[in-house]
């Protein structure tokens, strides 16, 4: 019984926070500031609490399991959520439904936790649904904006569609193997055509969630319409969580089909990188731009996954950690500027350095890290992904990916050019950043600057990696 509480610790803490918020909401009126302070403290406790009493184990006859790697992954997601929460301070401080926002947000996080810990396709599906449905609700949280409702609608429809495919795949897997637990499936998969078909459906379902090309069409519209906080949550946390679960599904559950899925991933990653890159070049809306750049980043992550090795799985976790820092440094600035001035176009950022030098450098460092140039952490992340991809000896894939770094550098530098070099008659006025967003940006920058040089981080993640 004691074990139950400790093993489920991270989920339970989150549930307690959700209920606490609900109960307090029923109680007396509080100002938005008070709520935001409270929630951010609770999230910080939630994040720090994840490091205490780590206990691994299996619960509910194999439906739920947790390991050191899974605990670490949940901590990473907690950290990302905390940063996003602090960054959305300016947006939420005048919002009418702060508490509802957090209840929905934390519910999706809870769903992701269960999804990562799933040892069974049903549990996986349950967690996935818990994580997507509230997400559609909060995508609609700019209540007055039509685009926001449109984004929510698109998100729920595409999520439902992808869930449908996933479910179809799951039912076919069950039909052909007679098992829904991961071990059972791994033992029974033998590569008969119907299983491959089922696997393709599953992969397509996952592809939708991580917005790999050709399943990416919803991404840009949803990212553009949703509030920036939700956009960054979608691009970092929800993508990260799906990637965390995709790796063990591919590496252990469908290991017997490795020959098949390797080629599929090869194709998916090449197409994803190229399409994401080419579309990112043409964007002027910052959120759409980050949407396409995040598609390209997923392509690079898929290259790492094709590595099918311990280096492959650990490079994914390492990259997601770094990606959280880099993407949230960029998104944090965009989110803050959008909340205070309402300007979201890249051309608005011309001359940004003249008026807001510090924010400009934060944004630039975030973009450098996304582009993967040293000494930022993004360099190490990309390097290990591509190195893992090269481990299989597929140098065609690695060369394509490496050369695509040129295109991605181009569009990131295009923004750097706008910030530092272009003149603007109406630049964004000088802004003062409140404490919470500032702290969040500092955390991101510290992460970008130091992650690559703290040997321990990579060492620890690598030691937890699942071998193939």
């Amino acid at each position, binding site marked *: 019984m004691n074990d139950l509480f400790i093993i489920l610790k991270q989920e339970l803490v989150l549930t307690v926070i959700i209920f606490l918020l609900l109960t307090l909401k029923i109680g007396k009126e509080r100002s938005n500031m008070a709520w935001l302070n409270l929630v951010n403290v609770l999230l910080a406790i939630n994040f720090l609490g994840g490091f205490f009493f780590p206990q691994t184990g299996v619960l509910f006859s194999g439906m739920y399991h947790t390991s050191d790697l899974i605990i670490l992954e949940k901590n990473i997601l907690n950290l990302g959520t905390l940063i996003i929460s602090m960054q959305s301070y300016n947006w939420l401080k005048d919002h009418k439904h702060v508490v509802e926002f957090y209840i929905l947000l934390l519910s999706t996080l809870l769903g992701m936790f269960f999804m990562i810990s799933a040892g069974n396709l049903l549990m996986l599906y349950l967690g996935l649904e818990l994580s997507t449905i509230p997400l559609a609700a909060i995508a609609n949280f700019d209540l007055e904006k039509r685009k926001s409702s449109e984004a929510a609608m698109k998100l729920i429809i595409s999520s439902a569609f992808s869930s449908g495919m996933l479910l179809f795949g799951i039912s076919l897997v069950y039909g052909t193997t007679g098992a829904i637990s991961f071990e059972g499936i791994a033992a029974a998969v033998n590569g008969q055509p119907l299983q491959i078909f089922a696997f393709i459906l599953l992969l397509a379902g996952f592809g939708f969630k991580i917005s790999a090309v050709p399943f990416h069409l919803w991404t840009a519209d949803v990212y553009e319409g949703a509030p920036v906080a939700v956009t960054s949550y979608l691009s970092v946390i929800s993508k990260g969580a799906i990637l965390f679960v995709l790796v063990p599904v591919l590496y252990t559950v469908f290991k017997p089909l490795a020959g098949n899925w390797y080629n599929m991933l090869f194709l998916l990653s090449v197409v994803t990188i190229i399409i994401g890159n080419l579309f990112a070049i043409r964007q002027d809306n910052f959120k759409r731009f980050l949407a396409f750049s995040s598609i390209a980043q997923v392509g690079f992550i898929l290259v790492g996954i094709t590595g099918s090795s311990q280096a492959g799985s*650990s490079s994914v976790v390492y990259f997601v950690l770094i990606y959280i820092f880099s993407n949230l440094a960029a998104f944090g600035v965009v989110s803050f500027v959008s909340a205070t001035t309402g300007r979201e176009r890249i051309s608005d950022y011309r001359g940004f350095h003249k008026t807001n030098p510090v924010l400009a450098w934060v944004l630039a460092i975030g973009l450098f890290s996304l582009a993967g*140039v040293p*000494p930022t952490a993004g360099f190490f992340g990309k390097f290990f992904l591509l190195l893992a991809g090269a481990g299989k000896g597929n140098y065609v894939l690695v*060369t394509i990916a490496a050369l695509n770094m040129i295109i991605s550098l181009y569009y990131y530098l295009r923004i*750097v050019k706008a910030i530092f*070099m272009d003149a603007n008659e109406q630049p964004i006025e000088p802004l003062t950043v409140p404490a919470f967003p500032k702290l969040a940006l500092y955390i991101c920058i510290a992460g970008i600057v130091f992650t690559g040089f703290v*040997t321990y981080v990579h060492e620890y993640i*690598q030691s937890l990696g699942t071998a193939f």
Partner: protein
Amino acid sequence: MNLHLLILLPLLTATAILFTRNLKQARTISLAGSILQLVLAFVLLAAYWQERATGNTAPMLFESSYAWFPALHINYHIGVDGISIAMILLTAFVVVAGVLVSWNVEKMSREFFFLLAFLALGAYGFFLSLDIFTMFFFLEISVIPKFLLIGIWGSGKKEYSAMKLALMLMGGSALVFVGLAGLYFNTSVNGGSYTFDLMQIAQLNIPVEVQKLFFPFAFLGFGIFTALFPFHTWVPDGHASAPTAASMFLAGISMKLGGYGALRVATFLMPDGAAAWSWVIILLATIAIIYGAFATMMQTDLKYINAYSSVSHVGFVLLGIGMLTHTAIVGAVLQMVSHGLMTALFFAAIGMIYGRTHTREVAQLGGLLKVMPFISTVFVIAGLSSLGLPGFSGFVAEMTVFMGSWQNPDPWYRLATILAIASIVVTAVYILRATGKAIMGPAMHSDHQLGDAAWNEKLAAALLIIGILAIGIAPFWLNDLVQPGVTLIMSKFQP
């Protein structure tokens, strides 16, 4: 001798510059930092001589290594031999001179000096690295500072040039990456673990097919940094648009990163690949030398003249490497150092002229010798060194390359050597023509109060001229310095 100092010092300088408030503080700290680096470089040279005098014949000295990503056998591993010391000395000279000529950068001065210090950090780190991952890290570190330096402080079509340079160098890095990854996954031939360690890989027998496959990636990648034809197009635009200090840095040091990498990584680690592909290197290098020389003749802008002539002169480096004879490779290293000093001096002189006359068009300049005698003399010295007049470093380096190249008995290679030697005539034409018009010629600026070089500019020029003469008059010390390193590289080519 603690080599970490050479990396820590620029890092500290850069960090300290971040906390300065105005131009005065920023430039003082930069100058202090870069002078300390120069002193350190000389201390390193002395320590190296002392080690060698006491009979230490280890290929690399002052090594130290720390695990960086132990799971992947990636180490932060540094050490030096004579070749690296020569390059470090070059870097130290150019950095001090670069800081001195940027003495009055008013615009965002803190960021400017920070980025300069960061470039220096990348160069020192690159020349010190004995682990290819460390090396790659330091190679790529310089891309963004270059982009910002050209784009923010440059002139002309600076955004275009900055973007072109950044993207082409990134392309170079991408190719180098593929080469390194291919090498890395073939280092377990003897059943050991994968490694990025330069000296360990050098002792392995990498299969010949692997070398043949990945040598072009590595060499081409580094070659882009060295303006290998046809990937030289970033050089003229980048150099011409960059602010003076950045031009000096780009031509003086950054292009040498590529040459050093092509020698130390591509050629040293994949000798069979180098032997198999050497005809391509020679072909491209010869084209670069001749095409660069003729393209220079057509230029009217002083910076473009020097940039295109850099393409031609760096071609000698690649020619020397491609010939794969001991003397030619010694010549290639000498040429890297010599060209670095000479071209930095040239760009410094052009920057000084431009700062006063606000034009770089040869047609609009004339009779500068009467108006600014010091700067004109500097320009002439740089020009004479560039066309290889005995007594200056250019003569020594080019002569060694040609002598070494002739030792390769292949008739086609000899033809390439003859063509390369013939290009010197073209060099003389464009250098003398520009000098004749701009420096001698009828005076066109006598009515202006232009003024001669200030103390900082004089110091910068003097420093570089001392370097050029030290090699030109007494080349033996540099020659002795690089010999053991080249012998080590050539040992891979013994049958």
